[in-house]
């Protein structure tokens, strides 16, 4: 599988990751190399084989829906890069008309 710099750009956008021109070139080369190795999986016949997402066989572990203590506001905000009163500050999301 050949990964182009355009592919890298598209994937970087999906991953919300800004990349430099140098990174685009490097990632294109390295991802091509790694995916070429991954392509060796094609030799294994997996017709009718169920995919494995997890190995314990557990599904839908439920607990009682009870009220319990959660992280206090001060603790939750202690690592905030920027805060105002009881909230996180972020750039304006809704655009003006």
């Amino acid at each position, binding site marked *: 599988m050949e990964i182009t710099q355009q592919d890298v750009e598209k994937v970087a956008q999906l991953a919300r*990751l800004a990349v430099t021109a140098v990174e685009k070139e490097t990632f294109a080369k390295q991802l091509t190399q790694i995916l070429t190795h991954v392509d060796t*999986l094609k030799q294994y016949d997996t017709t009718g084989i169920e*995919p494995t997402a997890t*190995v314990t066989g557990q599904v839908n572990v439920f607990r009682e829906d009870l009220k319990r203590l959660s992280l206090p506001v001060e603790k939750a905000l202690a*690592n905030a890069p920027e805060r105002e009163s009881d909230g996180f500050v972020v750039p304006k999301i809704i655009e003006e008309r």
Partner: protein
Amino acid sequence: MSLQKLGLVELHKKFTAGEVTATEIVRAYFLRISQVESKVKAFVTQTEEAAYQQAECLDQKLKVWRKTHPLTGMPLAVKDNICTEGVPTTCSSRMLQNFAPPYDATVVSRLRSQEYILVGKTNLDEFAMGSSTENSAFGPSRNPWNLHCVPGGSSGGSAAAVAAEECVAALGSDTGGSIRQPAAFCGVVGVKPTYGRVSRYGLVAFASSLDQIGPITRNVPDAAFLLQAIAGHDPMDSTSVDRPVPDYMKALQKRDLKNVRVGVPVEFFTEGLDPEVEQAVRPAIGELKQLGAEIKEIRLPRTDAAVAVYYVIATAEASSNLARFDGVRFGFRAKETKDLLELYMKTRQEGFGPEVKRRIMLGTYVLSAGYYDAYYGKAQAVRTLVCQDFDAAFKDVDLIVTPATPTPAFKLGEKSEDPLQMYLSDIFTISVNLAGLPAIALPCGFSGAGLPIGLQLIGRAFEEDLMLRAAHAYEQSTAWHRQKPNLR
């Protein structure tokens, strides 16, 4: 004899008997750290002041009533991707450089309830992605046996700290070999428990279907002792399994391996294996036979697929897990961004290092529309085949023995420019994570250049007891674990 020469079980006995105080222990270890840490660079954060305070507190309390837990007063190090309340947990990333978690990981609260003493947080490859600690944003740790060599990774700081006697034992995490490979490279013991045996709550997630926390120690009894303290069900981790935890120390009492069938997979002894490693592992298998085990040749035909499967599944899960680092609620935030999208994109560009970015890119790619079935779906299906290989093998044998790594520790910089070569160095440990099985790495010899070589024993799911018993029987009949690096 200096205190830091004692292993965990021995130190616990001495402390419980009142022959040594917690303050003496802490003093001995921080003296040792002051002597060797500038060479080894095992720690991201040292918690000296808190350790002394806690030790004094313990000594005062124990004067009145000498009641101790198994880990009371024991100086442990914790890998820096395991949350410790109020103590920085950086994942060796710029992204979390100033992050102090508001809560403890479950393993840490268990240690805390036993009054352990935290010595410090150990270095790792950024977000546990790597095999050498060279991907740490704060610089690599060194192998105590040869400071020009890597300690392995990603739990390289923990393994190096144990080998250099900077802590009595440590916790690591293992997603594709990140406990066992550094343990093998540093000549210490490392256990990756069965998936679900130990709670992952508070372990900063890399690949959630593969990650497990486990002990890194100087010998097998120490590993059993520490595993006992952290194993068991946790309601905060819905993937942890509600099954009784056996008495691991009791399991060690049986010293022979009669009626134990041990499989040797032919696929692990091929051209990629360094002859020096094979020359150490073959006699170790002979030793297991001497101890009464029945040795059988087995096949794990899909071994070759493991690395490719792993680098699809682990990166896919990582790309999703690391989406939370967006600069909004905690961690690093890029300055002067004009809108929310730019805040995300620049924060992640400036906060993550090259290997983390590479894996996020790869994981995003294999999950993206049009490639999902061809890569992610295919890898999940081949993962089933890898599991089936182990299931079939464990019908005929009780344990599997392999080399832990294809080569001894490599030199710093030797593989850092070639990601695929670095990935392939995990070839013997990765399939164990895909199948969720328990495995242990322990010393079985040295290379001509004096670097440790590790043996790996793989058990059936939740049969850590038999695995530890066999490892202990082997350890008792050899002296490899008693050799120490010369760090002057």
